């Protein structure tokens, strides 16, 4: 804060020299903080428990206000990765690579939240922490698949190679998501007739509002996390490139010095 000179003063969307925040991301973050508080009141206190019908979820319906939105956010994140990967292969600019990488990491956070909330819901609804529910199972597989994507990124040293390989993998992984989903779905449907955990289609009023509010909130949270993660990724790329340039310059200097001796 104190070190910013007029020349490098953070503009509305410029990055602050001390971190990944900007004026825009701070405003969004503040709005999100208030919105989350309101959401918690709506979801936990104001909205009524699910009470009608034989398969009513009671207070357990409340976890759906978190579970469904975070699941949507994780799918959105991987969709963004696929789009950014395709754009990278087309444009070959590092910004798209940064976007793809950042989105996978944020997406994995949401995937963990999806699995955790699904598991918690399952514990009270089914009595077990893990049930071979098609959606939970395919989400778990997707989780591992994108962990593999991050593992690949860590494994490739050359930035250009990494970006290209990761882009191809990001695209293929996204093609895999529906294949895995439908095959697991089909697999499970042979064993169990009723799908457990389907949301009541007649959901209305404050419950519907809580769910939609949660969805908007999860997507905004994704956007906010992405702002920071993308900037961090971008800076990392710059540092990496600079480090490479410095190393190259040093080697060249050494070569010149050696030549001078001879």
């Amino acid at each position, binding site marked *: 804060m104190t070190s910013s000179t007029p020349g490098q003063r953070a503009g509305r969307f410029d990055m602050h020299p001390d971190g990944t925040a900007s004026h825009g991301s701070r405003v969004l973050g503040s709005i999100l903080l208030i919105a989350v508080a309101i959401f918690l009141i709506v979801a936990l206190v104001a909205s009524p428990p699910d009470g009608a019908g034989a398969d009513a979820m009671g207070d357990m319906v409340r976890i759906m206000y978190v579970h469904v939105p975070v699941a949507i956010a994780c799918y959105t994140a991987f969709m963004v990765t696929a789009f950014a990967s395709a754009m990278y292969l087309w444009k070959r600019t590092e910004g798209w690579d940064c976007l793809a990488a950042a989105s996978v990491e944020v997406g994995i956070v949401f995937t963990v939240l999806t699995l955790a909330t699904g598991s918690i819901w399952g514990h009270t609804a089914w009595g077990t922490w893990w049930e071979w529910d098609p959606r939970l199972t395919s989400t778990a597989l997707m989780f591992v698949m994108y962990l593999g994507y991050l593992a690949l990124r860590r494994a490739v040293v050359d930035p250009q190679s990494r970006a290209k390989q990761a882009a191809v993998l990001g695209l293929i992984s996204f093609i895999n998501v529906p*294949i895995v989903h439908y095959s697991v779905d089909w697999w499970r449907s042979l064993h169990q007739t009723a799908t457990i955990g389907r949301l009541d289609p007649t959901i209305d009023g404050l419950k519907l509002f809580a769910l939609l509010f949660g969805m908007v909130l999860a997507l905004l949270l994704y956007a906010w996390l992405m702002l920071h993660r993308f900037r961090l990724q971008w800076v990392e790329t710059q540092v990496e490139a600079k480090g490479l340039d410095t190393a190259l310059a040093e080697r060249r200097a050494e070569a010149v010095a050696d030549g001078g001796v001879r």
Partner: protein
Amino acid sequence: MTNTTLRSVISDARLVAGKDLRLEWRSRVTLNQLLPFALLVLVLFAFALDPDRSVLKDATPGLFWLAVLFSTLLAIQRAFAVETVDGIIDALRISGLDPAGIFLGKAAGIALHLLVVEAALLVGVTVMYGASPSGLLLVVATSIAATAGLAAAGAVYGVLAAGLRVRDTLLPILWLPVVAPLLIGATQAFGSAYEKSSGAGWRWCGLLGAFAVLYTAIGFVAFEPLLEES
């Protein structure tokens, strides 16, 4: 794709597959290592599950395909290990062969190795687990469709991991979740082949075929950029 390019792709594929099979003929790695490994897995399953035949017999479809999956990992690693030593992969890149042809050849080589392994495993489960299939046609069709899918996906992920130092540990985590649908489909199809109800089995077999076609298409497109960076 025009007719002439397709023909050159196929002839390139034949060259690459022929080279891999010749290598195998001279080194006998599949015969001496892959086959014993697959049979060893069958024995280990028996240790883990109980020597009681009824358990093994019931679980035969799943165990068979798990053994195939583990063997495929080794086959993929072997298929690309022979390309990465001494910078041979650079020679492959500048050989002028169509990347799609290289992909097809690599996949075909892996597939042929796998079919041999599967034939041995089939004898293995019949003898050791006491499970004999009633729908032999479905067993053969499932094996061919699943093998094509495993090999196609294997060639794509194999070349992706080929140039990396961590390839041996990275390949399983990348490839296994991708072929999970194949494990499901092949196990289900085998399940109906072993239990005399072939109805749903053929549907699963169709899914395996669709997967193989899809991954062959992905390989045609993705192999070139991946080969350049490996």
